[in-house]
Protein backbone atom coordinates (compact mmCIF):
# COMPACT_ATOMS: atom_id res chain seq x y z
CA UNK A 1 0.00 0.00 0.00
CA UNK A 2 1.52 3.43 -0.92
CA UNK A 3 2.52 5.74 1.92
CA UNK A 4 0.05 8.46 0.82
CA UNK A 5 -2.82 5.96 1.00
CA UNK A 6 -1.71 4.78 4.46
CA UNK A 7 -1.46 8.39 5.67
CA UNK A 8 -4.96 9.16 4.39
CA UNK A 9 -6.32 6.03 6.18
CA UNK A 10 -4.55 7.10 9.39
CA UNK A 11 -6.01 10.63 9.05
CA UNK A 12 -9.49 9.07 8.86
CA UNK A 13 -8.71 6.91 11.90
CA UNK A 14 -7.76 10.07 13.79
CA UNK A 15 -11.26 11.39 13.08
CA UNK A 16 -12.71 8.25 14.66
CA UNK A 17 -13.51 6.37 11.44
CA UNK A 18 -13.73 2.69 12.40
CA UNK A 19 -14.01 1.49 8.79
CA UNK A 20 -10.64 3.07 8.05
CA UNK A 21 -9.20 1.38 11.12
CA UNK A 22 -10.55 -1.97 9.88
CA UNK A 23 -8.54 -1.47 6.65
CA UNK A 24 -5.45 -0.65 8.73
CA UNK A 25 -5.95 -3.83 10.80
CA UNK A 26 -6.39 -5.97 7.67
CA UNK A 27 -3.20 -4.59 6.16
CA UNK A 28 -0.90 -4.73 9.18
CA UNK A 29 -2.25 -7.69 11.19
CA UNK A 30 0.08 -10.25 9.57
CA UNK A 31 3.16 -8.04 10.17
CA UNK A 32 2.15 -7.52 13.78
CA UNK A 33 1.47 -11.23 14.35
CA UNK A 34 4.74 -12.25 12.71
CA UNK A 35 6.93 -10.10 14.93
CA UNK A 36 4.92 -10.86 18.06
CA UNK A 37 5.10 -14.62 17.42
CA UNK A 38 8.83 -14.53 16.71
CA UNK A 39 9.49 -12.75 20.01
CA UNK A 40 7.07 -14.67 22.23
CA UNK A 41 7.24 -18.06 20.46
CA UNK A 42 3.64 -18.78 21.38
CA UNK A 43 0.58 -18.51 19.11
CA UNK A 44 -1.95 -17.54 21.78
CA UNK A 45 0.32 -14.99 23.47
CA UNK A 46 1.18 -13.51 20.09
CA UNK A 47 -2.50 -13.18 19.17
CA UNK A 48 -3.35 -11.55 22.53
CA UNK A 49 -0.45 -9.12 22.15
CA UNK A 50 -1.50 -8.16 18.61
CA UNK A 51 -5.08 -7.52 19.73
CA UNK A 52 -3.89 -5.46 22.67
CA UNK A 53 -1.51 -3.55 20.38
CA UNK A 54 -4.22 -2.65 17.86
CA UNK A 55 -6.57 -1.45 20.61
CA UNK A 56 -3.70 0.67 21.93
CA UNK A 57 -3.01 1.99 18.41
CA UNK A 58 -6.69 3.01 18.07
CA UNK A 59 -6.70 4.81 21.40
CA UNK A 60 -3.41 6.63 20.79
CA UNK A 61 -3.52 7.19 17.04
CA UNK A 62 -3.87 10.93 17.61
CA UNK A 63 -0.31 10.87 18.99
CA UNK A 64 1.09 9.24 15.85
CA UNK A 65 3.09 11.56 13.61
CA UNK A 66 3.66 10.69 9.93
CA UNK A 67 7.30 11.78 10.33
CA UNK A 68 7.89 8.21 11.56
CA UNK A 69 6.97 5.12 9.52
CA UNK A 70 3.71 3.58 10.73
CA UNK A 71 5.35 0.14 11.01
CA UNK A 72 8.11 1.61 13.20
CA UNK A 73 5.48 3.08 15.55
CA UNK A 74 3.48 -0.16 15.52
CA UNK A 75 6.59 -2.29 16.18
CA UNK A 76 7.48 -0.03 19.13
CA UNK A 77 4.06 -0.70 20.69
CA UNK A 78 4.28 -4.43 19.98
CA UNK A 79 7.83 -4.91 21.27
CA UNK A 80 6.99 -3.01 24.47
CA UNK A 81 3.95 -5.22 25.02
CA UNK A 82 6.04 -8.34 24.30
CA UNK A 83 8.72 -7.25 26.80
CA UNK A 84 6.00 -6.67 29.44
CA UNK A 85 4.56 -10.11 28.71
CA UNK A 86 7.96 -11.82 28.92
CA UNK A 87 8.77 -10.08 32.21
CA UNK A 88 5.45 -11.20 33.68
CA UNK A 89 5.92 -14.78 32.52
CA UNK A 90 9.59 -14.84 33.59
CA UNK A 91 10.01 -18.28 32.02
CA UNK A 92 8.73 -19.93 28.86
CA UNK A 93 5.33 -21.50 29.11
CA UNK A 94 6.17 -24.25 26.63
CA UNK A 95 8.98 -26.68 27.28
CA UNK A 96 11.33 -27.20 24.39
CA UNK A 97 14.26 -29.56 24.20
CA UNK A 98 17.39 -28.79 22.24
CA UNK A 99 16.51 -31.51 19.74
CA UNK A 100 14.07 -29.03 18.23
CA UNK A 101 17.09 -27.37 16.62
CA UNK A 102 17.79 -30.53 14.64
CA UNK A 103 14.67 -29.83 12.62
CA UNK A 104 16.63 -27.07 10.93
CA UNK A 105 18.68 -28.50 8.09
CA UNK A 106 21.31 -25.92 7.26
CA UNK A 107 21.85 -27.46 3.83
CA UNK A 108 18.19 -27.25 2.92
CA UNK A 109 17.20 -23.61 2.56
CA UNK A 110 13.71 -24.08 1.15
CA UNK A 111 12.09 -25.58 4.28
CA UNK A 112 9.12 -23.73 5.77
CA UNK A 113 8.22 -24.57 9.33
CA UNK A 114 4.72 -24.55 10.72
CA UNK A 115 3.88 -22.40 13.77
CA UNK A 116 4.37 -25.29 16.19
CA UNK A 117 7.86 -26.23 14.99
CA UNK A 118 8.89 -22.60 14.67
CA UNK A 119 7.72 -21.91 18.24
CA UNK A 120 9.77 -24.87 19.50
CA UNK A 121 12.90 -23.76 17.64
CA UNK A 122 12.62 -20.12 18.75
CA UNK A 123 11.87 -21.16 22.33
CA UNK A 124 14.97 -23.33 22.30
CA UNK A 125 17.33 -20.67 20.93
CA UNK A 126 15.90 -17.79 22.96
CA UNK A 127 15.70 -19.64 26.29
CA UNK A 128 18.91 -18.18 27.66
CA UNK A 129 18.47 -14.67 26.24
CA UNK A 130 17.19 -11.65 28.13
CA UNK A 131 13.96 -9.96 26.96
CA UNK A 132 15.95 -7.11 25.39
CA UNK A 133 18.32 -9.51 23.58
CA UNK A 134 15.39 -11.52 22.22
CA UNK A 135 13.71 -8.41 20.86
CA UNK A 136 16.90 -7.11 19.23
CA UNK A 137 17.78 -10.52 17.75
CA UNK A 138 14.25 -10.89 16.36
CA UNK A 139 14.18 -7.41 14.85
CA UNK A 140 17.63 -7.69 13.26
CA UNK A 141 18.18 -11.34 12.33
CA UNK A 142 14.66 -12.68 11.91
CA UNK A 143 12.84 -9.59 10.65
CA UNK A 144 15.88 -8.17 8.84
CA UNK A 145 15.34 -4.58 9.99
CA UNK A 146 18.03 -1.92 9.61
CA UNK A 147 20.01 -0.75 12.68
CA UNK A 148 18.53 2.76 12.38
CA UNK A 149 14.98 1.42 12.55
CA UNK A 150 15.82 -0.84 15.52
CA UNK A 151 17.23 2.23 17.26
CA UNK A 152 13.94 4.08 16.73
CA UNK A 153 11.82 1.09 17.84
CA UNK A 154 13.76 0.25 20.99
CA UNK A 155 14.93 3.77 21.83
CA UNK A 156 18.36 2.29 22.65
CA UNK A 157 21.75 3.70 21.54
CA UNK A 158 23.59 1.92 18.69
CA UNK A 159 26.32 0.56 20.97
CA UNK A 160 23.79 -1.07 23.31
CA UNK A 161 21.99 -2.62 20.36
CA UNK A 162 25.26 -3.95 18.91
CA UNK A 163 26.46 -5.44 22.19
CA UNK A 164 23.07 -7.06 22.90
CA UNK A 165 23.00 -8.47 19.39
CA UNK A 166 26.53 -9.85 19.77
CA UNK A 167 25.63 -11.54 23.06
CA UNK A 168 22.46 -13.02 21.59
CA UNK A 169 24.25 -14.33 18.46
CA UNK A 170 27.08 -15.85 20.51
CA UNK A 171 24.62 -17.59 22.86
CA UNK A 172 22.65 -19.04 19.95
CA UNK A 173 25.84 -20.03 18.12
CA UNK A 174 27.05 -21.96 21.17
CA UNK A 175 23.74 -23.77 21.32
CA UNK A 176 23.90 -24.66 17.63
CA UNK A 177 27.49 -25.89 17.94
CA UNK A 178 26.46 -28.11 20.85
CA UNK A 179 23.53 -29.65 18.96
CA UNK A 180 25.15 -30.04 15.54
CA UNK A 181 28.44 -31.37 16.90
CA UNK A 182 26.48 -34.13 18.69
CA UNK A 183 24.55 -34.83 15.51
CA UNK A 184 27.69 -35.10 13.38
Amino acid at each position, binding site marked *: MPVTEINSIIAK*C*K*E*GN*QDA*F*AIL*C*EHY*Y*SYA*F*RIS*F*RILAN*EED*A*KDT*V*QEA*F*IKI*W*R*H*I*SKYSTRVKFTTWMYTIITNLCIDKMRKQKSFSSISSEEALMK*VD*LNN*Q*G*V*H*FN*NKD*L*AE*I*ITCIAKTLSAKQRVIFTLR*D*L*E*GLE*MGEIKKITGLPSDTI*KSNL*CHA*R*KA*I*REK*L*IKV*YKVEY
Partner: protein
Amino acid sequence: MNCKYFQDLLIQLPYHELNREEISLLENHLKGCETCRAELKDNEQLMEFSKILRESIPSDKNQQESIQHILKEINNSFYKPNFIRNIGEITLKPNFLFRAFQIAINVAALFLIGLFLIQQLEIKKELENLQSKIAIQGIMFRQKRLPVDIKEFTNLSDDQIEHLIKEYDELLKENSTILSFLRINYPEIYREIQQNKSIERNPLQNL
Protein backbone atom coordinates in the same frame (compact mmCIF):
# COMPACT_ATOMS: atom_id res chain seq x y z
CA MET B 1 45.97 -7.86 18.63
CA ASN B 2 44.70 -11.15 20.02
CA CYS B 3 41.72 -13.27 18.88
CA LYS B 4 39.44 -11.92 21.63
CA TYR B 5 39.53 -8.51 19.98
CA PHE B 6 38.31 -9.99 16.69
CA GLN B 7 35.43 -12.03 18.14
CA ASP B 8 32.88 -9.22 18.00
CA LEU B 9 33.98 -8.34 14.48
CA LEU B 10 33.85 -12.00 13.41
CA ILE B 11 30.22 -12.33 14.41
CA GLN B 12 29.28 -9.23 12.40
CA LEU B 13 31.18 -10.17 9.24
CA PRO B 14 28.61 -12.57 7.68
CA TYR B 15 25.87 -9.94 8.18
CA HIS B 16 27.88 -7.24 6.32
CA GLU B 17 27.82 -4.97 9.36
CA LEU B 18 31.52 -3.94 9.25
CA ASN B 19 33.19 -0.99 7.55
CA ARG B 20 36.06 -1.33 5.06
CA GLU B 21 38.76 -0.68 7.64
CA GLU B 22 37.39 -3.36 10.00
CA ILE B 23 37.05 -5.87 7.15
CA SER B 24 40.66 -5.44 6.01
CA LEU B 25 41.90 -5.69 9.61
CA LEU B 26 39.94 -8.89 10.09
CA GLU B 27 41.02 -10.40 6.76
CA ASN B 28 44.67 -9.87 7.67
CA HIS B 29 44.11 -11.63 10.98
CA LEU B 30 42.16 -14.52 9.44
CA LYS B 31 45.06 -15.31 7.09
CA GLY B 32 47.18 -16.43 10.01
CA CYS B 33 44.57 -17.66 12.55
CA GLU B 34 42.93 -21.03 12.14
CA THR B 35 40.81 -20.70 15.33
CA CYS B 36 39.18 -17.52 14.07
CA ARG B 37 38.59 -19.10 10.64
CA ALA B 38 36.74 -21.96 12.37
CA GLU B 39 34.75 -19.45 14.39
CA LEU B 40 33.84 -17.57 11.24
CA LYS B 41 32.50 -20.81 9.78
CA ASP B 42 30.30 -21.27 12.87
CA ASN B 43 29.10 -17.69 12.51
CA GLU B 44 28.22 -18.29 8.87
CA GLN B 45 26.21 -21.32 9.92
CA LEU B 46 24.40 -19.21 12.49
CA MET B 47 23.53 -16.71 9.77
CA GLU B 48 22.22 -19.54 7.57
CA PHE B 49 20.18 -20.78 10.51
CA SER B 50 18.65 -17.30 11.05
CA LYS B 51 17.96 -17.04 7.31
CA ILE B 52 15.99 -20.32 7.35
CA LEU B 53 13.96 -19.09 10.33
CA ARG B 54 13.37 -15.75 8.59
CA GLU B 55 11.93 -17.52 5.56
CA SER B 56 9.40 -19.39 7.68
CA ILE B 57 6.74 -16.77 8.21
CA PRO B 58 4.32 -17.53 11.05
CA SER B 59 0.70 -16.75 10.36
CA ASP B 60 -2.52 -16.65 12.36
CA LYS B 61 -5.09 -19.06 10.95
CA ASN B 62 -7.83 -17.17 12.77
CA GLN B 63 -6.74 -13.73 11.56
CA GLN B 64 -10.22 -12.61 10.48
CA GLU B 65 -11.73 -13.72 13.78
CA SER B 66 -9.03 -11.84 15.66
CA ILE B 67 -9.56 -8.66 13.59
CA GLN B 68 -13.31 -8.87 14.27
CA HIS B 69 -12.51 -9.12 17.98
CA ILE B 70 -10.33 -5.97 17.79
CA LEU B 71 -13.06 -4.05 15.92
CA LYS B 72 -15.69 -5.17 18.42
CA GLU B 73 -13.47 -4.03 21.28
CA ILE B 74 -12.89 -0.58 19.81
CA ASN B 75 -16.59 -0.25 19.01
CA ASN B 76 -17.47 -1.01 22.63
CA SER B 77 -14.79 1.32 23.91
CA PHE B 78 -15.98 4.74 25.00
CA TYR B 79 -12.58 6.19 24.14
CA LYS B 80 -12.22 7.58 20.66
CA PRO B 81 -9.09 8.93 18.98
CA ASN B 82 -8.45 12.51 20.07
CA PHE B 83 -10.84 11.73 22.93
CA ILE B 84 -13.86 12.59 20.77
CA ARG B 85 -16.99 11.29 22.42
CA ASN B 86 -19.56 11.31 19.67
CA ILE B 87 -22.57 11.75 21.94
CA GLY B 88 -24.40 13.44 19.08
CA GLU B 89 -23.91 10.35 16.90
CA ILE B 90 -25.58 7.93 19.28
CA THR B 91 -28.02 5.74 17.41
CA LEU B 92 -29.64 2.45 18.31
CA LYS B 93 -26.47 0.38 17.95
CA PRO B 94 -25.93 -2.79 20.01
CA ASN B 95 -23.64 -0.84 22.34
CA PHE B 96 -26.15 1.97 22.81
CA LEU B 97 -27.21 0.79 26.27
CA PHE B 98 -23.62 0.58 27.43
CA ARG B 99 -22.87 4.13 26.27
CA ALA B 100 -26.15 5.43 27.71
CA PHE B 101 -25.27 3.80 31.03
CA GLN B 102 -21.86 5.48 31.06
CA ILE B 103 -23.39 8.87 30.25
CA ALA B 104 -26.04 8.40 32.97
CA ILE B 105 -23.32 7.62 35.53
CA ASN B 106 -21.41 10.76 34.53
CA VAL B 107 -24.54 12.93 34.78
CA ALA B 108 -25.45 11.44 38.19
CA ALA B 109 -21.92 12.08 39.46
CA LEU B 110 -22.06 15.72 38.29
CA PHE B 111 -25.51 16.15 39.94
CA LEU B 112 -24.23 14.79 43.27
CA ILE B 113 -21.18 17.05 43.15
CA GLY B 114 -23.48 20.06 42.47
CA LEU B 115 -25.76 19.12 45.35
CA PHE B 116 -22.81 18.84 47.70
CA LEU B 117 -21.49 22.28 46.69
CA ILE B 118 -24.93 23.92 47.16
CA GLN B 119 -25.22 22.34 50.62
CA GLN B 120 -21.79 23.65 51.52
CA LEU B 121 -22.81 27.18 50.48
CA GLU B 122 -26.00 26.99 52.56
CA ILE B 123 -24.08 25.79 55.61
CA LYS B 124 -21.65 28.68 55.15
CA LYS B 125 -24.54 31.19 55.00
CA GLU B 126 -26.16 29.70 58.12
CA LEU B 127 -22.87 29.99 59.99
CA GLU B 128 -22.47 33.63 58.98
CA ASN B 129 -26.02 34.42 60.21
CA LEU B 130 -25.31 32.65 63.47
CA GLN B 131 -22.07 34.57 63.93
CA SER B 132 -23.79 37.95 63.38
CA LYS B 133 -26.57 36.98 65.82
CA ILE B 134 -23.98 36.06 68.46
CA ALA B 135 -22.22 39.38 67.86
CA ILE B 136 -25.49 41.34 68.33
CA GLN B 137 -26.25 39.39 71.50
CA GLY B 138 -22.80 40.35 72.78
CA ILE B 139 -23.42 44.04 72.06
CA MET B 140 -26.81 43.84 73.78
CA PHE B 141 -25.27 42.16 76.80
CA ARG B 142 -22.74 44.95 77.14
CA GLN B 143 -25.41 47.61 76.69
CA LYS B 144 -27.65 46.14 79.43
CA ARG B 145 -25.19 47.63 81.91
CA LEU B 146 -25.89 51.16 80.70
CA PRO B 147 -29.19 51.68 82.64
CA VAL B 148 -27.11 51.16 85.79
CA ASP B 149 -24.94 54.06 84.62
CA ILE B 150 -28.05 56.15 84.14
CA LYS B 151 -29.26 55.35 87.65
CA GLU B 152 -25.87 55.97 89.10
CA PHE B 153 -24.91 59.14 87.35
CA THR B 154 -28.25 60.98 86.97
CA ASN B 155 -31.04 62.09 89.21
CA LEU B 156 -33.75 60.53 87.04
CA SER B 157 -36.60 58.68 88.69
CA ASP B 158 -37.24 54.94 88.11
CA ASP B 159 -40.24 55.71 85.88
CA GLN B 160 -38.20 58.07 83.76
CA ILE B 161 -35.46 55.44 83.42
CA GLU B 162 -38.03 52.79 82.53
CA HIS B 163 -39.38 55.06 79.82
CA LEU B 164 -35.91 55.67 78.46
CA ILE B 165 -35.13 51.93 78.37
CA LYS B 166 -38.34 51.24 76.45
CA GLU B 167 -37.42 53.84 73.87
CA TYR B 168 -33.88 52.43 73.74
CA ASP B 169 -35.15 48.84 73.23
CA GLU B 170 -37.04 50.06 70.20
CA LEU B 171 -33.90 51.65 68.83
CA LEU B 172 -31.75 48.64 69.71
CA LYS B 173 -33.29 46.86 66.76
CA GLU B 174 -31.60 49.50 64.60
CA ASN B 175 -28.25 48.68 66.25
CA SER B 176 -28.02 51.95 68.15
CA THR B 177 -26.24 52.23 71.49
CA ILE B 178 -27.96 53.82 74.48
CA LEU B 179 -25.33 56.54 74.68
CA SER B 180 -25.75 57.58 71.08
CA PHE B 181 -29.52 57.45 71.63
CA LEU B 182 -29.21 59.79 74.62
CA ARG B 183 -26.77 62.07 72.81
CA ILE B 184 -29.24 62.58 69.99
CA ASN B 185 -32.55 62.57 71.87
CA TYR B 186 -31.62 63.70 75.38
CA PRO B 187 -28.34 65.65 75.10
CA GLU B 188 -28.62 67.14 78.62
CA ILE B 189 -28.83 63.63 80.22
CA TYR B 190 -25.94 62.48 78.04
CA ARG B 191 -23.79 65.44 79.11
CA GLU B 192 -24.66 64.81 82.76
CA ILE B 193 -23.58 61.16 82.50
CA GLN B 194 -20.31 62.02 80.73
CA GLN B 195 -19.49 64.75 83.22
CA ASN B 196 -20.17 62.57 86.30
CA LYS B 197 -18.33 59.61 84.81
CA SER B 198 -15.18 61.64 84.17
CA ILE B 199 -15.23 62.94 87.75
CA GLU B 200 -15.40 59.39 89.07
CA ARG B 201 -12.59 58.20 86.79
CA ASN B 202 -10.38 61.20 87.75
CA PRO B 203 -11.28 62.48 91.24
CA LEU B 204 -8.45 65.07 91.14
CA GLN B 205 -10.42 67.02 88.50
CA ASN B 206 -12.57 68.57 91.30
CA LEU B 207 -9.63 69.87 93.23
